[in-house]
């Protein structure tokens, strides 16, 4: 059985600038892979090569073993969930209309999508009463949950996420992170997530890919990341490690005082 996502020596150039250099990456079924790296390292471009929001200049992207560029681009995108920091809910459509957009593009009529909307809202832990609301009436966290529901509507097997929690407060990030991981298991998704936050990557992923200047610098499990001697990886881990140390120290103090 082929890997769900396979990038084979993918390169991307804008003018004289190399955005991506010879990226080769395989993501297996139901794997949760995070792409981490400093800003400008090409993370978002790499993600967009998968659903062809960006067309690679060289190399090959395959989905379930077939080259992505040979598929009809709209069909490819409709079969892949896409969630991003900007969320991009359609401001003139209700929550229900936003959520059911992809099935409707695929030809489903409005009556058929009614129960689907209810199921999806439940799946992302939103009350069914939100279906009739307009996007501007929702909080940031609710909006991103609707964004996730929209991405899941066409029952995709792949989920692409670009800084999905970037614009949210810490509490919302945390609870949404849990939901995403749960949905990943529950729906047997294959997830590729871009984040600049190593902590988030460590807590959610099965595997972490570190991208520096458009090339893969490191590829391994969260445990491998923590034990890596690579200086870039170590610097990316330094902040979460210090926070964790400080918090565990604080947690131990009252006990030692007692």
């Amino acid at each position, binding site marked *: 059985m082929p890997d769900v996502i396979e990038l084979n020596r993918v390169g991307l150039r804008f003018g004289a600038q190399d955005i991506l250099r010879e990226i080769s990456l395989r993501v297996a079924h139901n794997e949760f892979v995070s792409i981490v790296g400093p800003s400008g390292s090409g993370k978002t471009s790499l993600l967009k090569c998968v659903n062809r929001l960006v067309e690679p200049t060289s190399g090959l992207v395959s989905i379930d073993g077939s080259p992505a560029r040979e598929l009809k681009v709209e069909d490819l995108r409709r079969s892949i969930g896409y969630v991003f920091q900007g969320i991009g809910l359609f401001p*003139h459509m209700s929550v229900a209309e936003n959520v059911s957009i992809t099935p409707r593009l695929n030809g489903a009529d409005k009556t058929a999508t009614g129960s689907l909307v209810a199921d999806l809202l439940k799946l992302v832990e939103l009350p069914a009463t939100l279906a009739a609301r307009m996007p501007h009436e929702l909080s940031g966290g609710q909006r991103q949950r609707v964004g996730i529901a929209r991405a899941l509507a066409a029952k995709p097997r792949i989920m692409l996420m670009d800084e999905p929690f970037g614009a949210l407060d810490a509490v919302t990030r945390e609870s949404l992170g849990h939901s995403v991981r749960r949905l990943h298991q529950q729906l047997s998704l294959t997830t590729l997530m871009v984040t600049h936050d190593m902590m988030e990557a460590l807590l959610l992923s099965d595997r972490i890919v570190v991208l520096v200047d458009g090339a893969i610098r490191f590829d391994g499990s969260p445990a491998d990341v923590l034990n890596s001697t690579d200086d870039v990886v170590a610097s990316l881990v330094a902040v979460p490690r210090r926070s964790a140390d400080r918090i565990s120290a604080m947690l131990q103090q009252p006990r030692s005082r007692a």
Partner: protein
Amino acid sequence: MSEQWRAALALLPEYLGQHVLLSAAALVIATLISLPTALLVASRPTGRTIVLGLARLVQTIPGLALIALFYPILLALSGVTQQRFGFSLPTLGFLPALLALTVFAILPILQNAVLGLTSIAPDVIEASDAVGMTRRQRLTLVDIPLAAPIAMAGLRTSAVWTIGAATLATPVGQTSLGNYIFSGLQTENWVFVLFGCLAAAMLAIVADSLLALVEHGVARRRIRLVIAGVAALAIGVAAAGATGLHRTSTYVIAAKNFSEQFILAELIGQQMRAAGLSSSTKSGLGSAVIFRALAAGDVDVYVDYSGTLWTNVMERSDIPPHKEMLAAITQWMQRERGVKVLGSLGFQNAYGFVMRRQRAQELGISTIADLARHAGQLSFGADLEFTVRPEWQSARSAYNLNFRSIRTYDPTLMYRALMGGEADVISGFTSDGRIAASDLVVLSDPQGAIPPYDALLLVTGARAGDARLLDALKPLVGVINIETMRSANYTVDRDNDKLTPAAAAQIIAKRLTRKDDPPTP
């Protein structure tokens, strides 16, 4: 006062109906042009700059000039279609007004539609692509619905502009609410001017409110509001169409933009009605436009003056004896333009240099030659066309006239300027009622530099053999003397107790029938 209001109100269905039809047609066509153009250029920065630049350029042309420009354009086009395809285009009335207003109406709609399409948030565009919309789906599901409320706001702006600018359609012969304003200004009938302004403003407010309803409905996605607004607009336009198109008249009478012409057009109309012929009047046309319109058959009948035809149309600079000139004009009109000169009405309305009697006496001026000696200290007020007419060139060189200053005025305001002392001399008209009433003098022309201006009744070539029309008009030939015309003009021009041109025409008609002396054969 109430007499004037009643007269204004009686004309409202026709003027308003025509105004609504014209504005609505221009807005619909402008929308049909603007929206596809916006879709085409929104994503192309160069195309966008060019198209918006062009639309903005058009907007800088004054409305009146834009409307006036379409007359020569259509005249030229009409020549081409006549040659190539054997049909001619109407050069006056609805078509030039519609084209000019359409061009004028485009910018706000186009600009807002482009703004609407280009201001869609990048996140929304990214999402549209990511959910797998095709180009067409993105257009219909995202771009158009999001741009629609902004484009609607542009349509509202455009509607208000267009309804205002449509009042300028009057001078090219398209009836509109501007007829109140133009004729009111010429006859100093401020009730008419005010009525025209109020009616146009009210119409603009109503149209704007209904479009606001539609815009609100589009933005809030309330289909009922959209339907209600569109239905109300459609009913309004249909009602206008019913009153505006109902009138079908066989003959078109034209008038230039001053009181005497309005009265004579009414008189001709009354005469034709009495003979069972229906007619409509295009009033407020410019001298150059009106004759070409007659020659082209867009106008059937009007009164022009021998001196104007001689110098402006025939481009003659010599001034032969009176009778020879009339014979030459009649022949030339027949031969060159197929126009039938039915005869002189019996009076002249010449251009003359006019001064206040007291001022003229103080300076010892009674002829243009006397005037030339003092011209260096005097300011001259001319009507809008006199200083570009050949008569002015001829008088100026014959007497070596060099005024201290020259200003041009609307004819009505020109008399005001003379009375108020802003002008010492004006280019008056000898049949003007204000000359006797305000104690003015017309300076004599010993060198004969200004040609005679007999009021000639002209009929277009196509109607030259129309016996019913000619029989209806012939009784007017040779029966209106200068006193009759002056007093009729004064009843319309005076400040108090003024009459409408129609009422003044009725007075002339009564005098014609009361007088039993038969018209000169």
